[in-house]
């Protein structure tokens, strides 16, 4: 029983830690503007691959850690990540019919929702926001989605969309 529990969560927690690491890795300013939201896509992946573990609650809790790391107001990333996961859940039926590269186009609304909430909260709390640049991470996240899925599928053994029909 206990072992079952660990087996289910180990890949999730490990991948989230790796994603957090990539999120915190210092990059030059220009590159940093286009940094893909690794934490977000990892949560989206688990929302699809392990719907009873990943999902809105996990996203919200993960968001708190991201807030602590990035010194943003508590709840900002929680809100953004849970919204991204919510959009993902709503799109799940549609995603099943497409191969991974095309999924990234379909998931663009989820990533855009994530970036938009961050942008919006930044604006409300009085931070400067360059509107055009905010589009970049959503695009780069969508672009890296197929690769990231491949890596996660390969290391964890879970598939992004479980094939129940095969």
């Amino acid at each position, binding site marked *: 029983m206990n072992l079952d529990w660990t087996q289910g969560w180990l890949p999730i927690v490990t991948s989230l*830690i790796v994603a957090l690491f990539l999120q915190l890795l*210092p990059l030059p300013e220009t590159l940093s503007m286009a940094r893909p939201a690794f934490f977000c896509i990892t949560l989206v992946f688990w929302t699809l691959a392990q719907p009873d573990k990943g999902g809105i609650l996990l996203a919200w809790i993960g968001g708190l850690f991201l807030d602590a*790391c*990035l010194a943003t107001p508590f709840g900002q990333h929680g809100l953004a990540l849970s919204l991204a996961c919510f959009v993902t*859940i709503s799109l799940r039926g549609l995603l099943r019919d497409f191969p991974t590269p095309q999924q990234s186009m379909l998931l663009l609304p989820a990533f855009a929702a994530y970036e938009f909430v961050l942008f919006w909260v930044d604006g409300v709390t009085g*931070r400067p926001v360059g509107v055009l640049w905010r589009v970049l991470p959503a695009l780069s996240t969508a672009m890296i989605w197929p690769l990231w899925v491949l890596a996660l599928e390969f290391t964890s053994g879970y598939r992004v969309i479980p094939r129940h029909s095969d």
Partner: protein
Amino acid sequence: MDGFDHDESGASGESGPPPLISMVLALAASVGLMMFDRSQDTLQPARNVMASLTYPLDAVASVPGEMASSFDNYLQRERLTEDNQKLREENLLLRGRLQKLAALQAENARIRSLLQSSRQLQDDVIISEVLATSPDPYRQLIKLNKGLRESIHVGQAVIDANGIMGQIVQAHSFHSIAILITDANHGIPVELNRTGLQTIAQGLGKSNQLSLPFLTVNTDIREGDLLVSSGLGERYPAGYPVARITRIAHQAGDEFLSIRAQPTASLNRGREALVVISRNTPPAEPGAQPAEHASPALDAGPETPASAPDMSVPDDAAS
């Protein structure tokens, strides 16, 4: 049914409540949390614990950058590197103390002639290493490797060998976060070293620029002028270099000049920072305060010095 995730998940739902309800709950919780977090400091301990949990990640994340920069050092003999490090720290400490001289000469001539007040020169500082700059390109923050354990507290000024960098906004057990003077939410009360004019230097959110708003067209200010901290607002110690004026522009019809200044501190290059733990401007310094107000009144609008204390407190540091 835990073991059959693969088969089960084809069906639409999670095992918990329906997504829409979770989403509404998450929304309410996030918004509540954000408002609560902004209005008071009660969540600081929680943030402290979570930040300490993720601290190892931070430390590891900064390794590649550190390795690249110290690659040259590793080619040398180890002892040399050690000596070098020790000397650099000592040098930084000394320069940190020395840099007040330029400001003091001018200040002495001005103030000492008016009143016989003298200031204590020594500030105690803690050398700390810059662990990381903010991964968020829209915020100008740095993470320092000293925290509450080394008696670092919110509000302390951070300087480097060439000038003021910013102030501590979050102190955790093992590390702390400082806001740089270039953050768009930050303003620092400064005075023009040449004339003693009091004003505020605001960050613009860009890594290398400050703006001096609300200076009228007839203000005596030139490119190259040095701005030093004035100590008003009691956040920053007085007399440290802050920035140099780089550009003064005036649009016809505008009441105010558009002035840009470049911070003297190397905000995004340095690896070390000094945290000033004692200030040389005690709240009640009867002689100095009236003098500081007296001289700018000659050339600046009357409201500029009055608004300075408020501007120096960034949002996150509001207590």
